[in-house]
């Protein structure tokens, strides 16, 4: 589904990704772990198409297409979803209208008929329960006045409604208490199936207690320095990042 080869990316003059390789198959959950500044969020943003990142070398292939050539909205139409580390507040833009417009933009791209208001409400009703999304939040402006946990839950709620093929969760666990973490994890787990892939970007092993990854990668200084199964995360938890850096050196 996703194939990243020798990816190099800069912000301004600073090189952040320095030859990253990653291959994700349909149905897999990959965790990417690493210390602060290792390039985790840069990877997530480059994949989603945020401005300000300069890809200097390497390729990213998504479902046979050159992902890097697509606009952010084209990536979303093609089934890519980024759950933001810091979801943006947008005063004056209604949360539920945005979600309906997003769903219909994707459906239009796929050549499906667009949903009317009734059909759309039917679709989101079930999804709201999974992440315990409060109805009054739905009718507010996007993320405006939401608590940190509510923002993250809104991201997962949007994800569950949009049903992406590839979901990238950028530090979705940061700033969440244990109850919120469980709800968010439940939302992610409910979406897991043999066709959908997930990339979990996280600093802590804690999230992986609730969302079991198939593969764990350790990112350090812009490269993946170790890959393995869930045991890698446990080892990291026990020994810290220094150990793995030394081992890789």
């Amino acid at each position, binding site marked *: 589904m996703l194939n990243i080869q020798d990816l190099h990316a800069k912000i301004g003059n600073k090189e952040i990704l320095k030859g990253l390789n990653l291959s994700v198959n349909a149905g897999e959950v990959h965790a990417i772990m690493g210390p602060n500044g290792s390039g985790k969020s840069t990877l997530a943003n480059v994949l989603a198409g945020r*401005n300000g990142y300069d890809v200097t070398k390497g390729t990213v292939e998504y479902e046979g297409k050159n992902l890097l050539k697509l606009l952010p*909205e084209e990536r979303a139409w093609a089934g890519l979803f*980024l759950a933001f580390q810091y979801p943006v507040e947008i005063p004056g*833009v209604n949360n539920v209208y*945005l979600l309906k*417009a997003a769903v219909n933009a994707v459906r239009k791209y796929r050549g499906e008929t667009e949903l009317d208001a009734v059909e759309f409400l039917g679709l989101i009703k079930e999804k709201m329960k999974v992440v315990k999304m409060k109805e009054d939040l739905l009718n507010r402006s996007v993320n405006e006045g939401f608590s940190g946990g509510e923002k993250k839950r809104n991201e997962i709620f*949007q994800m569950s409604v949009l049903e992406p093929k590839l979901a990238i969760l950028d530090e979705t666990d940061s700033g969440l208490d244990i109850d919120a973490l469980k709800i968010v994890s439940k939302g992610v787990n409910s979406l897991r199936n043999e066709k959908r892939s997930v990339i979990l970007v996280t600093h802590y092993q804690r999230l992986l207690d609730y969302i079991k990854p198939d593969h764990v990668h350790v990112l350090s200084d812009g490269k993946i320095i170790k890959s393995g199964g869930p045991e890698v995360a446990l080892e990291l938890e026990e020994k810290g990042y220094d150990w793995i850096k030394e081992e890789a050196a």
Partner: protein
Amino acid sequence: MSPETMSDNIQNYVNDFNQLKIDDWLDESRHSALKLFKESGFPNSKLENWKYTDVRPIKKKSFSNVPGLTTSVGTEEINAVRFNGLDCIEVVFINGLFSKEHSTLVALEKGLVVENMLDALAKDKDLLAKHLTKYADDKVSPFTALNTAFIQNGTFINVVPNTVIEKPINILYLSKESNSALATHPRNLIVMGENSEATVIESYIGLDDANYFTNAVTEVALSPSAILKHYKIQQESLNAYHIGNLNIRQDKDSKLESHSISLGGALVRNDIHGQLAAEGAEIIMNGLYMTGDKQHVDNHTRVDHLKPRTLSTENYRGVLNGKSRAVFNGKVIVHKGAQKIEAHQNNANLLLSDDAEIDTKPELEIYADDVKCAHGATVGQLDQNMLFYLRSRAIDEETARSLLTYAFADELISNISFAPIRNRLEHLVIGQLPDTALIREFTNE
């Protein structure tokens, strides 16, 4: 008269004035106003008040000041610009001339007078003599003097004390191409009795892309505890010039809400002058200007806090595109002895193109020591983080830009409590934005 002023077409205005042949009690005021205008000529940019707005396009053009002319306007054309389904009292003017046929001035609510100015001058002399020309100062702006010289068409509204008028009064000034370029000088007077309440909408609308000049003046007198909600919607043709002057004098505990929406016009100047002349008077001024192409829109406001415990709140927002230019100048004067007043002012601007330009200037003059005043001005562009967030949610870039622009403008409009007007204005704002298939997902349409 110098040759220079002659070339400004001033003689043209004088000639048309001489043809008016109105002989009534106001004629002395008209003549002295014309004299003032002849002496001062059009304002130039050396004057501080006109520093950023060059009115040469107006003064160079030879306009006819005889309203009406040859144009006919059909009911369908008028229906297209009416408020959909709004139950209101309507006063319609076409090319400056009152249209009895299209107006709905029969069977008005008890305690309400709505008349064409010419009729009112004949019928309500005592009341008009007390208020007309008393709040708009011919000496302050040559355009006001010019308007006073030509007082004949316009709207007179009087609400008697202790009366609440439920239906909004919608005044439509419609302009359409005629056989010569037209200057019209609508003059409105709104007199609100003690403890009365009303809603008035002034709409200035170009029905095609004609080149004309609207020079409007509105005077408002609020008696104690009167409440007026005043909306001005400026949708002149993009080839038209619009100079509008709103002057308000407020008595004790009265409240004025002014909403000024400026969308059309090639060259536009809106002036609002509020005088808070007794304790407890409150003025709220909201404004939205959206400009594109080479439009020039200037909003000048001035509030005089003449007495203690008066309150002013001002919020103006601008959205500028193309090579357009906008000016905001908000003056607040706290006079000596006007203690415990509150004045809040804010002007926020969104620049959508590199070639658009805004000059924003808040001015505070305070001659009292126990006051609460705050003002601020911002100029910015669309937020990149918001744009990316929307695009990552499958919203195409053009829709995302329109949506954020709409959200910026709507922060003003969404506060309007009266739904039919709010919806109409939201509809107009959406109409100013690039039309995309997706944008309608975000509106009630």
